[in-house]
């Protein structure tokens, strides 16, 4: 830390330049801008999949701004909440627009985040040295799910109420402390005014604060290690005479304006929903949620909002009969690790012991299927965090992996969408069977990745990025 030095500019320099110099002497404004965006070098071969990061940031801002205006008129009170939402829709000038932007924004957030994560999966964006970028991003995803869950209670409709009741009751499946834990979360014996007030606090301040912090960490980590690209190669390996990577360009103006174009197309689609189909056929705003919450009337069909349904399907697939299949799967996985992995004997022994404990725990006399359903539900989300350590493929990008890997990813995407669809439907025997097959496929994709990701004939990876000038 040197002595303070005032930047000397000629007397006739523009006022804005002088003002910026004054600020820069006291705060690293220009430095932050240049490090994080202006002079941040990004690979020049980004494709359309690389728009979803900036779109997620845009939706976050939209949600915060519309959320602030909604908070000015919304009443977090079990007796007033439902009416206050209708008050916003009718009496508050432009209230209907703000509310529809917020409700559509919630679904839009998950759409762009799922696509953003799919991009990471396709091009191996989580691989070393970007593990922390992935983990911070995963943290954002977790907080986003919590944020959506808490926010969904606020309109205090039937689906808000019973959805919250079902999810909070999941904690009741935890042995010994479960019942007390769900009581502690609700603050009452049923979802009530106390629950509404605490969910409001989490939704409007606690989680947004954490999300913003994680977004800063996600971007800082990314700009520290540099962006991946569709070829999955490091642009930093080829530095030009100017000291910058040959295949990278400054984010500003190139990605500023490319992202602006992406934003304009996104807003076009977003506005089409907001203005012409805000309910989106009952997926973005569920019909049942136009009935005020009633603790005496349980709806015949309670389904979470669409963005939770893939994981919810895993929960519902875990029936008592399915436990025997799971026990066999655990045993098979332990045997597979024993013969196929090059882990130390002690590690293998520990894994076998864990497997044995799991199998014993899965016996109906020990812990019931409901508990394991909750465990699998949680695991289906948490396992995504493990990707940087599960993927052992020699090529980061799907482009240079064996062609059959593309089919594996396609089947995984189909399994995820199928689980999502089944989660919105009433369970039938056939649907339950399909969701069980999909559950096994879902976990198989991740747990067997250390092996299948190394198999097959890999294509030669280029040393420089693939780019066609516009």
């Amino acid at each position: 830390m040197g002595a303070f030095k005032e930047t000397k500019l000629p007397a006739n320099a523009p006022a804005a330049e002088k003002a910026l110099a004054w600020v820069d002497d006291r705060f690293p404004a220009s430095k932050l801008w240049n490090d994080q965006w202006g002079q941040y070098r990004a690979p020049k071969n980004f494709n359309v999949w690389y728009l979803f990061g900036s779109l997620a940031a845009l939706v976050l801002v939209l949600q915060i701004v519309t959320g602030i205006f909604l908070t000015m008129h919304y009443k977090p009170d079990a007796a007033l909440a439902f009416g206050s939402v209708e008050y916003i829709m009718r009496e508050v000038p432009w209230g209907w627009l703000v509310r529809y932007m917020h409700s559509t924004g919630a679904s839009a957030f998950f759409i762009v985040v799922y696509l953003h994560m799919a991009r990471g999966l396709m091009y191996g964006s989580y691989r070393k040295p970007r593990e922390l970028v992935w983990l911070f991003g995963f943290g954002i995803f977790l907080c986003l799910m919590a944020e959506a869950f808490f926010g969904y209670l606020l309109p205090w409709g039937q689906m808000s109420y019973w959805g919250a009741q079902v999810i909070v009751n999941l904690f009741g499946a935890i042995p010994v402390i479960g019942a007390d834990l769900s009581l502690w979360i609700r603050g009452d014996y049923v979802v009530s005014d106390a629950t509404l007030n605490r969910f409001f606090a989490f939704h409007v301040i606690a989680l947004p604060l954490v999300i913003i912090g994680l977004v800063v960490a996600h971007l800082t980590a990314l700009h520290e290690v540099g962006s991946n690209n569709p070829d999955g190669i490091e642009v930093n390996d080829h530095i030009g005479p100017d000291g910058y990577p040959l295949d990278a360009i400054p984010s500003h103006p190139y990605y500023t304006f490319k992202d602006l174009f992406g934003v304009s197309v996104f807003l076009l689609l977003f506005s089409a929903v907001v203005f012409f189909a805000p309910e989106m056929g009952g997926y973005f705003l569920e019909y049942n949620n136009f009935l005020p919450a009633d603790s005496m009337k349980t709806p015949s069909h309670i389904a979470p909002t669409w963005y939770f349904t893939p994981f919810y399907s895993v929960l519902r697939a875990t029936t008592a009969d399915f436990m025997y299949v799971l026990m066999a799967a655990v045993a098979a996985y332990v045997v597979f690790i024993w013969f196929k992995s090059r882990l130390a004997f002690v590690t293998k022994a520990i894994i076998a012991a864990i497997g044995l404990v799991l199998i014993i725990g899965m016996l109906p006399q020990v812990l019931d299927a409901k508990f394991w359903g909750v465990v699998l539900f949680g695991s289906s989300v948490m396992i995504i965090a493990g990707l940087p350590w599960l993927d052992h493929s020699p090529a980061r990008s799907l482009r240079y992996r064996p062609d059959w890997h593309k089919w594996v990813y396609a089947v995984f995407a189909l399994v995820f969408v199928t689980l999502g669809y089944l989660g919105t439907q009433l369970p039938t025997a056939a649907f339950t069977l399909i969701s069980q097959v999909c559950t096994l496929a879902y976990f198989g994709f991740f747990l067997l990745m250390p092996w299948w990701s190394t198999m097959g004939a890999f294509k030669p990876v280029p040393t420089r990025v693939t780019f066609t000038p516009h």
Partner: protein
Amino acid sequence: MTLLVKKLIAILALAPGLAFAAEGTFPLDRAPDRGDLASLQNGAKLFVNHCLNCHSATSMRYNRLRDLGLSDDQIRQNLLFSADKVGDMMTTAMRPKDAAAWFGAVPPDLSVIARAKASPAGTGADYLYTYLRTFYQDETRPTGWNNMVVPNVAMPHAMWLQQGIRTAKFTDQPDPHEAGKTVHTFAGFEQVSPGTMSQQDFNTATADLVAYMVWMAEPAQATRKRLGAFVLLFLTIFAFLAWRLSESYWKEVK
């Protein structure tokens, strides 16, 4: 006939789950499109005359009806029954406690009912249009009325004077899937006494009422769509300009 109905009622009373499952099984008629101002005004008149006696629409302000081309004076003179001022909400004079005692259930608030009743079986309008036209006389019910869409509904037929009194015919046929069992199926209505309206006029009046309830469920709907067209037009131009602007920079990248 009555014996059969009684049998059905007994079965339904014994199995509340069955009664619940029965809801939604009656096929919904498609509500005619009655979105013009005259229909909506007629619907508003029917709504305040026939629905607001028992139901409320507490999110709906009387003078929001100005959006339907009515003046404050017209609203005050023709439609203001349950409140004193045109700026008041559409509340009901009936106390919830009394309602529960008289009907066995508190009549639900109707502000957004047209949105709540949408389902894969049809729009909220289809549901209301079918529900309001399928009341029939049933002496086994406390109110003397039953309904095809919501079996054993607590609500009596509010517009029976207009539709007249009808009964429902049911037939029992052998169950093709199980020998010795019969299937109880609806076989049409029978008009017992005529109403003040022809069946045709009653259908139109109900369609107007439903159109009003759809409007009331989201009064901003027309504004939303009108504005939406301009927003999409603007964004299309903006997207085109943003694309050209982006391309003009990307030309330099070799």
